């Protein structure tokens, strides 16, 4: 058996010039498919993560203005969202969590001297869960008590924390927001979100909504964010929220501009569908590439059989069983596919691992994911390659086994 294989390899080697192109085509097809699927996989996982971090079951509300007359008042009336309206929404069964969100820009310093003009958001403790925010180890997000007692605590975005404190640990340190001291309770884990508003969270400072209201004399929040109890029913929740607010604030429930509602869950579903589409496309492209390569292998195999009619006839005349001839041709096709496919797989793995090791910017990485050569992808491709070998070798092998020794030997 080993001798047989050795002899086969030697013969293939002798034919290397002609086989080269086919092997390259196979390698290329496999490489493409693996890298594409690897990317698809990494991208996919990254996207799922990014979506979750962006709050994939969240609605974001902000006050607008009427465009149709309602409640005896003309169109163009501003519709502010008040904390009481948010409280009414919190009572809806479709709402799991809710937080007000006040936004200001304020000078932030560590004492006397310069400091950035940063975005400071006043939010409730539920905000972190609604937005999928995680806090780095050693710290915490805002608590209910922080809100009730209007504590002067702050949770910092990753980047602004580094801007202010450098490499030092900010937890427990004090910073000044518009000259008022705040104690740092936590720092966000670095994060990238696809569905952003008012910039990336990395640059923001979060403080209790009650504290910010009192400090700046605010009344109405810029946004109300809430988490749907069931993400897949988000469209219905949007309707219900609109009806509830329309009744309280006396606008026409059909007037979509009166209150702006962003449905992140629906957006996440769309992105999910897009990802699926991309993967499907990549898969089809790769499979087609492999099919083309398989046709190439079949072609070469046919040519090899044609060329070797004499040799095959002789082997049969010397007592070879037709089955042996057939197995040999199939083995030959399998070897071609294994060399090409194996090379492609190996190269693809190297490429993906190399890319993974590349010091890419975190935001690029977030969108790209870490395209790794995953086991299921590799197994699937190996199965595909096996099928290619069978498809490519089957017919030529049958023809080889059907050679009539006498016809082959007459050609001399």
């Amino acid at each position, binding site marked *: 058996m080993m*001798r*047989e294989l050795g*002899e086969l390899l*030697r*013969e293939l080697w*002798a034919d290397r010039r002609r086989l080269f192109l086919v092997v390259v085509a196979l390698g290329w097809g496999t490489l493409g498919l693996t890298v594409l699927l690897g990317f698809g996989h990494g991208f996919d996982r990254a996207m799922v993560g990014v979506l979750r971090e962006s709050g994939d079951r969240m609605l974001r509300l902000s006050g607008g203005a009427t465009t149709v007359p309602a409640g005896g008042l003309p169109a163009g009336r501003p519709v502010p969202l008040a904390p009481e309206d948010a409280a009414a929404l919190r009572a809806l069964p479709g709402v799991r969590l809710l937080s007000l969100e006040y936004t200001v820009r304020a000078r932030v310093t560590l004492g006397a001297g310069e400091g950035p003009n940063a975005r400071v958001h006043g939010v409730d403790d539920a905000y972190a869960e609604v937005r999928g925010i995680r806090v780095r180890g050693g710290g915490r997000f805002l608590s209910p008590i922080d809100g009730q007692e209007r504590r002067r605590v702050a949770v910092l975005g990753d980047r602004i924390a580094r801007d202010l404190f450098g490499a030092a640990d900010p937890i427990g340190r004090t910073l000044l927001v518009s000259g008022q001291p705040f104690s740092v309770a936590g720092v966000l884990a670095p994060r990238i979100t696809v569905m952003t508003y008012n910039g990336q969270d990395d640059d923001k400072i979060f403080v209790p909504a009650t504290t910010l209201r009192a400090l700046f004399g605010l009344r109405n929040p810029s946004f109300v964010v809430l988490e749907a109890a069931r993400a897949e029913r988000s469209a219905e929740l949007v309707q219900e929220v609109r009806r509830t607010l329309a009744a309280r604030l006396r606008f026409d429930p059909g007037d979509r501009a009166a209150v702006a509602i962003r449905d992140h869950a629906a957006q996440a579903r769309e992105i999910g569908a897009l990802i699926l589409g991309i993967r499907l496309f990549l898969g089809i492209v790769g499979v087609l590439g492999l099919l083309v390569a398989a046709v190439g292998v079949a072609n070469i195999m046919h040519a090899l059989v044609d060329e070797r009619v*004499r*040799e095959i006839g*002789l*082997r*049969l*005349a*010397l*007592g*070879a*069983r*037709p*089955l*042996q001839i057939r197995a040999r041709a199939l083995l030959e096709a399998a070897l071609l596919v294994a060399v090409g496919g194996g090379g492609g797989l190996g190269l693809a793995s190297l490429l993906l691992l190399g890319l993974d090791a590349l010091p890419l910017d975190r935001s690029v990485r977030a969108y790209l994911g870490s395209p790794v050569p995953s086991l299921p992808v590799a197994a699937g491709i190996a199965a595909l390659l096996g099928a290619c070998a069978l498809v490519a070798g089957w017919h030529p092998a049958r023809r080889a086994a059907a050679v*009539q*020794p*006498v016809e082959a*030997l007459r050609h*001399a």
Partner: protein
Amino acid sequence: MPEPLLALRGVSKVYARDGAPVRALDGVDLDIAAGEYVALTGASGSGKSTLLHILGCLDRPDQGSYRFAGTEIASLRPDALARQRRAVGFVFQAFHLLPRLSAVDNVALPLRYSGVAPAVRRARAVEVLRRVGLGDRLEHRPGELSGGQQQRVAVARALVGAPSLLLCDEPTGNLDSRSGVEVIELLEELWREGCTLIVVTHDPGLAARARRRVSMRDGRVVGVAEQER
């Protein structure tokens, strides 16, 4: 009378060439006993090769019966047919060696198909190559050997499986007369050891060496002569 080793009855083979059928063999009856030395002669195109191919199970008759040691060859399934072919040694005019394999690998090839272990194969191949006088050419490729040496490799390949029947189709046709005589003497040595030997030849001198001479014309056996030597 015991059953002959080979028995042909009414064997015909017809080829269609440019529409017109060619009767390569036309009702051949022939018996050959074990241990015989037969020369098959006749003009080119008279059907000698076709007959030899049928005897070696490389071809099937369109009509008639061919029995080898009592077995009807037409009834054999592919695997049994392959086994039957292994019981026959064939030497061709054109050698038919595999150019990519060394002499010893060429000779060992039939043993592979009879399932002999690799180490044994090589030992046996070396042994028969020594016997045909090529002990010093084991690793040469066919292209590196003279015509006479190539045909001796082919003879070695034919006898490596210890066949009871040797079929030779103009084995000296491509050789100079000295190499030709060497090969024929080698074949006769095997015959003397008990092998049945059938040689197709144009050469009257070679034909005269056989014990029986079968003449063919237009696909028919037209004469059988016993010969003294």
